[in-house]
């Protein structure tokens, strides 16, 4: 789960990290009121989960009511990479002389957390990482011990942070590590950590992603989840407990197991189609869950055909078939063609009860995908002819 910047800042501030005064606003009037109480200059920052939002116009500086109004009008309601901005964070602007990067994440290759510091923070950190990786000091941490204070100091000195702020920056890194560990985070990151002309250190941004698998032991963080969900369909998927990713294409895909569902997406592409989504119903799904999955995919207006591919291990083919039958019973005529392929545990029993009058059935994965791609192609040709 990815926290919004304002949520992460609240968590960071509570842990004692220096963050600028800030207020959340959802309208131009609220932006003006917030700016008034914080005092100009302020930064107006879009609250969406999109990288590079500054470069895309999602962050603006305002020194007066007029500029704040202008910033609010241009950012609220704007589309940033498919996300509509409905909230902004109004924050005291920091007059900085240096921008640093400080972050903690899991190095999966090493199976260990890694703490990182760079004296070249700011919007270009990804280019810095790609072009001059030596500009980022890395310190691997033994997860059984946690980060020793000397490791935080070493990372800060290795990154070339200036002496007079080194101790404060090492403090930021230590706190980020503790937050990372205590919150079961995937990442905790501040980019940039700003250094002011008075040699103060301020956390001007905040990134915090929580391991979904650990949310059960962090009810306070889990409570932030609803506010963090953005796309309607993704919110629906959360409610049903599906792994779901919406894509751009028109072939809806439902399957069991991440690897097999990804393979189904790849085959749709391979046979000339375009996948509309990734939807994994997981292992051992019962009829109701199967019906919910079809409901989800039908709710996406981009979908022109659906391929349902199940290879049963702990999932049973007859349960899946029952779920599909239940889900389509509500329609006199299917709104979109469905191609079903069942294999593995109880596939034969499933095929026997499947409503084959309404559904297309294929024996192989390749056959099912090709059929669904043909249906989707025909649907878009028909639409084109009707226009």
């Amino acid at each position, binding site marked *: 789960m990815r926290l919004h910047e304002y949520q992460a800042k609240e968590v960071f501030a509570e842990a004692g990290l220096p963050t600028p005064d800030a207020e959340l606003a959802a309208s131009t009037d609220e932006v003006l009121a917030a700016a008034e109480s914080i005092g100009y200059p302020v930064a107006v920052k879009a609250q969406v989960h999109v990288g590079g939002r500054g470069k895309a116009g999602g962050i603006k500086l305002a020194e007066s009511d007029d500029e704040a109004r202008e910033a609010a009008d241009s950012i609220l309601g704007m589309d940033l990479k498919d996300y509509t901005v409905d909230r902004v964070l109004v924050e005291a602007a920091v007059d900085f002389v240096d921008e640093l990067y400080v972050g903690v994440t899991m190095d*999966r290759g090493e199976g260990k957390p890694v703490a990182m510091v760079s004296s070249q923070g700011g919007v270009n950190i990804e280019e810095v990482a790609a072009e001059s990786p030596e500009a980022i000091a890395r310190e691997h941490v033994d997860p059984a011990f946690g980060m020793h204070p000397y490791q935080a100091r070493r990372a800060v000195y290795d990154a070339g942070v200036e002496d007079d702020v080194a101790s404060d920056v090492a403090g930021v890194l230590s706190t980020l590590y503790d937050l990372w560990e205590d919150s*079961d985070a995937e990442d905790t990151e501040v980019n940039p950590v700003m250094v002011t002309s008075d040699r103060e250190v301020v956390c001007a941004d905040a990134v915090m992603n929580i391991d979904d698998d650990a949310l059960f032991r962090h009810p306070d963080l889990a409570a932030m989840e609803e506010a963090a969900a953005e796309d309607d369909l993704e919110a629906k998927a959360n409610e049903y407990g599906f792994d779901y990713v919406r894509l751009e294409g028109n072939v809806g895909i439902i399957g069991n197991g991440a*690897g097999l569902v*990804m*393979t189904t997406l790849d085959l749709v*592409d391979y046979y000339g189609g375009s996948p509309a989504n990734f939807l994994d119903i997981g292992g051992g799904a019962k009829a109701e869950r199967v019906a919910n999955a079809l409901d989800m995919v039908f709710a996406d207006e981009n979908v022109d055909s659906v391929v349902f591919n199940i290879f049963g291990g702990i999932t049973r083919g007859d349960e899946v078939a029952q779920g599909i039958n239940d889900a389509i019973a509500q329609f006199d005529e299917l709104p979109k063609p469905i191609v079903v392929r069942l294999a*593995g*545990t109880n596939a034969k029993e499933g095929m026997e009860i499947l409503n084959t009058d309404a559904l297309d059935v294929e024996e192989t994965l390749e056959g099912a995908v090709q059929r669904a791609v043909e249906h989707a192609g025909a649907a878009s040709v028909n639409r084109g002819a009707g226009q």
Partner: protein
Amino acid sequence: MSVLVDDDTRVVVQGITGGEGEFHAGQMIEYGTNVVAGAVPGRGGEEVHGVPVYDTVSRAAEAENADASVVLVPPAFAADALFEALDSPVDLVVAITEGIPAQDMARVYKRLGETDTHLIGPNCPGVITPGEAKLGILPGNIFSSGNVGLISRSGTLTYQVVDNLTDRGLGQTTAIGIGGDPIIGTGFVDALSLFEEDPATDAIVMCGEIGGTDEEEAATYIDANMDTPVAGFIAGRTAPPGKRMGHAGAIVSGSGAGTAEGKIEALSEAGVPVGDTPEEVADNVEELL
């Protein structure tokens, strides 16, 4: 011959009194696996499917001379179960549990490095040597005995590929589901080296997916160290960057590392044919044999 498990393997099932544990212990026994004990705290003295249950893994392993453990314990308690297995006499641990917090696994992984135990998984379907033993939740009926070794990060994709192999009479020595999590005990390189040492394995299929750099490291290893031919498959070619697709491991980071393209290129350069479809993987195996 086979790797990791055979009909001599003596298995403890951790969590045998739970719903999943009881069901899959039954399935393992039905397949012919030597399930000799269960381990569940507070349930010592009971029996499940006629198998004695002990309070600790060490007691179970000592009393029944077990050398392997299958972990079917819910995620919140799984790390503790894994530490317990690593501190017991068993030398193979197969962790089926999906959804173990990553930081728990980092601590387990650290401990694993201090032992000689093999850990398979977590978040995996298990290990099967067809006709001899299965440790995990794989549907036994789709496997057949033969000379192809299989290594896969994904459960159902394993079944799909095995189905294509079995269909053509290409049986398997052993199939290992290594698991889809970011931190797993046995990676591709470790699993490949096991098959390379196995005289009965004449070809290997490795099914990878986006995320991490394990496939790239495997390509380097194959190129430098292996005589047994390998056929590959990579899932996730169409996955958009930055999106998590089910497996915690299956996420392409923004920096370009871990993409399907990069993995396919690395494997191809190491002489591993990478199929576009599961059918094509079976074609490639036929050619390699």
